[in-house]
Structure formats: C-alpha cells, structure tokens
C-alpha cells in the first residue's frame, strides 16, 4: 500500500513538472510566423482577410501570417486554452469588449499603450477606444464596431395611423396600445431577454435610458435602486400587458430577428446585422422594404435623449507571444485607415475620417443597407454605453441575467432579484 502511494506521488510529481515546464523553441532565423485567431462570419470575408495579408506581405515579406477562423462561441474558450501553453498557440487574437478586463487582469493581452501613435489615438472614435482600454491602459486595436439599434416596421405603424416612430418608451407603449386595440399585432415588441448576454445588453439600454447605470464611478453595483427596479418593473409589466412577446424570456438576438422578419412585431432592438437581412433579403424575411431604424427611445423625464450598447471587438497581442513586434505590425496594418476604407464592405471602419466627405459617400454606397446603417451609426454611437470593465464580468453578468430571469418568470420581485445580484457583484469585487 505504501509503495503504491509513493509511486503515485512520484508519478504525480512527474506529471506536474512535465506540465509546468513547457518547451521554449529557440527563435529561428528567417521569416517569423504570426498565428492569428479570429472568428468566422464576422466583418471581412476569408477572401478579404487573405487579400489583406497579401498586401501586407508586399511591404513585410519576412512576416508570415496564418489565420485560423472559429465560431464566436468558441473564441473565448480557445483564447483561454491557448494561453495555458507557452509559447501560446496564437500571437494575435480577436477579443470581445466584455472579455478585456478579464484578459488584462490574467495577463493574456499585451499592453500596447505606448505603441499607439498620436494620429491613431486622435483619428479613431473615442468610443471605440473604450472597448480595448482597461484602467487607462490600451490592450488592443478596436475592430468591428457595432452597437444596438431601434428597428420598427413602418407598414404596421402606418396601419395604426402613426407617421413617426416613438421617441420615448412611453410614446411607444401608446402606439402599441393602438396596434393591439385595432388587432394589427398581438405583441408589438419582441426582445432578447433569454438567459444570455443579450438580456444584459437590452437591460443596459433601458436602464441608461431611464437615467441609471450598472455601476457607479467607483465600479460598485448601482442597479439595485429605484431606477433599476423601475426599469425591471417596466419589463415585467410590458409582458403582463401583452406589449412584449412573452416568449422574449427565452429569446436571443436571432429569435428577435426571426419574429421581426415574420411581421409579428412592430418594434425590436437588435444589432446592425439585422437591417440588411430583414429589409433586403426576401429569402430571409417576409417584411422586406418595410423596416426602418431610428434613434433608440428613452424614458420620459429621465433627462436622457437616447441610449445604446457598444458591442465592438478588438485585436490584441498575446502577452507571451515571442514575436510581439511582428504581431503589432500586422495589427497596425489591418486596422490602418487605408485598409479599413478599402475593405469596409462588411465592416464599419473606426476612423472618424471614414465617415467624412468622399470616404462617407463610398462607405454608404457599398450596399443598400449601408446607405441607412452608416448615417444611423453616426447618430447613435455617441449614446453607446460600454458594459463595466471588471475582471469578473462573465460571472457578474450571469448573476444579473439570473436576476432578470427570476423577475421575468415571477420567481422573485424585481427589487429582491436586483438586490441579490448586487450582493453577488459586491462579493465578486472582493
């Protein structure tokens, strides 16, 4: 028995040493390889990404770029797994807004504050920098700007006798009541309130449209107050009154798009991607040509004009990458003004000059959808909120998702649910 135990310990020690001591390959001379992890079906197509690499190689023949594409759902896990080995499996990776605080605290992403030139800092939208900045330090280049918008079905509004979209949520409820009374739609609104990050996005929009916010200046939870309870109560009430589709409790963005495409909802909140598919693609939608976008409503008397949520991403360098300089060269090239303007058929550039003069005309002309979404972006982006940059965000978000769900399924009162979530946030911050 004793021998077995000591053998086990020896084995365990061996195993552990082996897993701690990674091999450190010596830096070979000649071209360096930069391995890039990005996601499928987002922004530029694979062909466009390859074309960018080709152009990059014209001026940087000594850097070889290898790109791997994975699904968005796999991206976070892939990055955290890759960082467990040394050197990491990737030198450059795409990261979502809400992961930056966690990645920065874990030491996964390289601090690139000093690498950013002044014309870059000034040329790019200030709100875009919010994505990759944690505690005053910049951890990557913003990329793939996105935010949520307010969509409405103009046809249904006209049937109910309205010429203009609502500017406030109160006005929206009034219009919804008319639609219900006339039997135009059963549930005028559809939301993504399922147990997903999407619910947080919707809630932040409503909460900040009510003058509230998730956290205060010190980063402490600030949603379990009158404004938070009011907002959550409003959500519960709209389901009870039949203004909101009750299935919203199980929906994500894609369900919202589907229901909206059916013409079963007059109002919806969703990301940019929905517009093109709903309004221009008859294979995808039954309401093509009837969909408009307008500034996100806010609550009356809140003093807020509009609100939205920033859902952009960024490209970062793995902190343990053996080739940070080559990696940065590639990221710089990928996010340069020229390349962005040249390849913006499938993504919004983050350079302010891209939205001016000739560049703007070109940008708006890429697709019929761009003619609407580009000006709308300009109008809505100043109101876009960033979710709290706290390293425990994934866990905090899950507890808030649970709170919203508990209130929506009537297992707890909004007040109770929000207090519980806030207590969890305080505990996490310790």
């Amino acid at each position, binding site marked *: 028995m004793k021998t077995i135990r000591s053998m086990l310990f020896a084995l365990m020690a061996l195993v552990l040493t082996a897993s701690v001591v990674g091999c450190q390959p010596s830096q070979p001379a000649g071209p360096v390889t930069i391995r890039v992890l990005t996601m499928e079906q987002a922004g530029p197509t694979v062909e466009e990404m390859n074309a960018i690499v080709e152009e990059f190689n014209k001026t940087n023949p000594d850097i070889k770029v290898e790109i791997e594409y994975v699904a968005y759902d796999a991206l976070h896990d892939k990055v955290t797994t890759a960082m467990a080995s040394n050197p990491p499996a990737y030198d450059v990776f795409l990261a979502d807004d809400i992961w930056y605080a*966690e990645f920065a605290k874990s030491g996964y992403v390289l601090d690139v504050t000093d690498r950013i030139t002044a014309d870059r800092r000034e040329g790019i939208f200030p709100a875009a920098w919010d994505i990759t900045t944690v505690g005053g330090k910049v951890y990557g280049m913003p990329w793939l700007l996105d935010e949520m918008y307010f969509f409405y079905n103009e046809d249904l509004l006209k049937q109910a006798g309205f010429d203009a979209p609502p500017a406030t949520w109160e006005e929206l409820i009034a219009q919804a009541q008319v639609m219900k009374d006339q039997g135009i739609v059963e549930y005028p609104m559809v939301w993504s309130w399922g*147990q997903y990050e999407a619910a947080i996005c919707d809630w932040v929009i409503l909460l900040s449209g009510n003058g509230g916010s998730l956290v205060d200046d010190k980063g402490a939870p600030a949603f379990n107050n009158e404004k938070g309870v009011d907002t959550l109560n409003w959500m519960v009430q709209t389901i009870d009154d039949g203004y909101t*589709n009750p299935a919203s409790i*199980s929906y994500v963005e894609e369900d919202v798009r589907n229901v909206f495409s059916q013409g079963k909802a007059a109002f919806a909140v969703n990301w940019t991607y929905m517009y093109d598919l709903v309004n221009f693609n008859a294979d995808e939608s039954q309401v093509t040509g009837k969909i408009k976008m307008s500034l996100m409503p806010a609550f009356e008397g809140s003093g807020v004009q509009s609100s939205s949520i920033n859902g952009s991403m960024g490209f970062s360098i793995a902190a*343990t990458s053996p080739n940070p300089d080559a990696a940065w060269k590639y990221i710089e090239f990928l996010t340069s003004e020229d390349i962005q303007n040249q390849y913006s058929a499938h993504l919004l550039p983050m350079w302010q000059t891209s939205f001016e003069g000739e560049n703007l005309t070109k940008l708006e002309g890429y697709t019929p959808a761009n003619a609407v979404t580009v000006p709308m972006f300009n109008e809505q982006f100043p109101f876009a909120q960033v979710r709290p940059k706290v390293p425990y965000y*994934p866990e905090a978000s899950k507890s808030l998702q649970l709170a919203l769900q508990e209130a929506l*399924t009537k297992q707890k009162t909004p007040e109770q649910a929000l207090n519980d979530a806030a207590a969890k946030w305080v505990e996490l911050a310790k």
Partner: protein
Amino acid sequence: MQRKRTLAQQDTLVGLALILPSFLIILGISLQPILSTLYLSLFEVPRGINLQNTFVGLGNYIALLREPIFWATIGRTLYFTVISVGLELALGLAIAQLIHAHPPGWQFLRTSLIIPWAVPTIVNGTMWRWIYNADYGALNGLFLQLGLIDKYIPWLTRPELAMNLVILADIWHSVPFIALILQAALATLPADLEEAASVDGATALQYFWFIRLPLLRPAILVALIIRTVEAFRAFDIIYVITNGGPANGTVTISFLTYLEMFSFGHAGRGSALSFLISIFTLGLAFIYIRMLYRPEEKL
C-alpha cells in the same frame, strides 16, 4: 491437479496479455489529465500567466457542498438523468422487444433506429430549439392544426417545462442506443429457450419477466451505466436549446462546471466540481450494479 494449475496459470497470463494494451492506452491517456485535475481541485487557481496557486486542501469541495446552488443543480441533474434514462430504458426495451417479435417492417424499423442517433447532438439541439419556438415552431404549428391549443404557447419560458422539453429532445436522440443494444442482446439469446418456454405454456408476460429479463440483465446494466454517465454529464443539448435558462431552470452540473472552468475561470472550483460529478456517477453506477448484479453472474 497438475493440469488444472497450469490451466489457471495460463489463464492469468493470457488474460493479462489481452488486457494489457487497453490498460496501457487508458492509463496513458487518462492518468495525467485526471491527476492534474485532482491536483488542481486542491488549489485556488487564479486565471492568468505566472500566478501562484494557493493550496486550499479540500476548501473548494467544502465551499461547493455548502452552496445551495450546488445542491439545486445536483437536484436538476438527477431529475434530468433519472427521467431521461428511465424513459429511454422503457422505450428502448419496448422497441427492442417489438423488433425481436419480427412483425412486418421490423427490419426497416431496426435500420431507421440509427437515424436519430446519427444526427449530431448540436444539430439535434438546434432542431428542437426551432421546433419548440413560440412564434414559428413546428410544435405550435402542429398542435394548433390538430386543435390541441387555440393559440401559440411560449414553451421555453417556464423552468420546469423547459427542462422536460430538453429531456424529450435527449430521449429522441438516445432511445436508439438502448434499443439497438438490447435488440442485439436479444438476438444473442438462445432460440431454444423461447421454444422451451412456449412448450411449457408460460404466458408472454411470465416469459418476459422470468426468462428474458434476467438474461438481458447484463446488457441492461451496461446500457444503463453508459447512458447514465452520459446523461449526468449532458452539456451540448442544454447549451444549444436553453443555455441554462429560464432562470437557471436547466442548469445541470456539467453546465455549471463549464461556466466555472471556462467562463468564470475558476479552475480549482471547476476541477473540484468535476470530481464531485465523478463521485456521483460512480455512486449511481454502484447502485445499478447492486440492483442488477447477481452473484452467479461473473461480472
């Protein structure tokens, strides 16, 4: 005497030789990961590069066992496992018997059984998520046309209902496994037994209960154990259909482990959770073996 001992010795040698390759493969692949998981479960592991782990002993386990959410999750997981495996066994046994009775179309049925099983879990989940959808799902469409409901129902918005619907999707996918295993076991049974029974004048039920079921016991035991291990660790199908919602109503232990390990970055807690899962599944396996194992069988 002399001859017998050599035979026994020969048995041991041959036996070890036969087992050795499998034993080495399993040991080689599983030992290192399992040991490092066990090791990690004794630490608080901050996520990050070059960070020190803090030894907490059984701290992670004790903390988990104290949390109400852990027990609620275990409860849901047991519910999921017991209901889905139980119904799968009942249905699987029925289908296997049906095939064994060789009614018209039995061969077609046996071939068809493979289909639900062959549909990848991730597609199965997406398909059922669409079927259950409140606004454009086939379930509402079908029920409305059959006159069973008078308006569309939001199926996935109530925790208990959502759980049962996830179970239904899992049953559809997994019944074929049990049915095929039991059907194959039935096919291996001696045919003369059946004839003997009918000569003795046993009723069908008596025959099933006293002769067929005991003979099937080893196959049932194995099918149960394998399906229980799988069901207890169900993850993909829940991730796709409900993502744990509504209000955590479908969060099972594997889903919680996934959140802790990957989303929240608590490698220590996650490892402890996975060892607790192992203990629970081993416990269930032992219950089965107790219930189904008979000393005269040499399992």
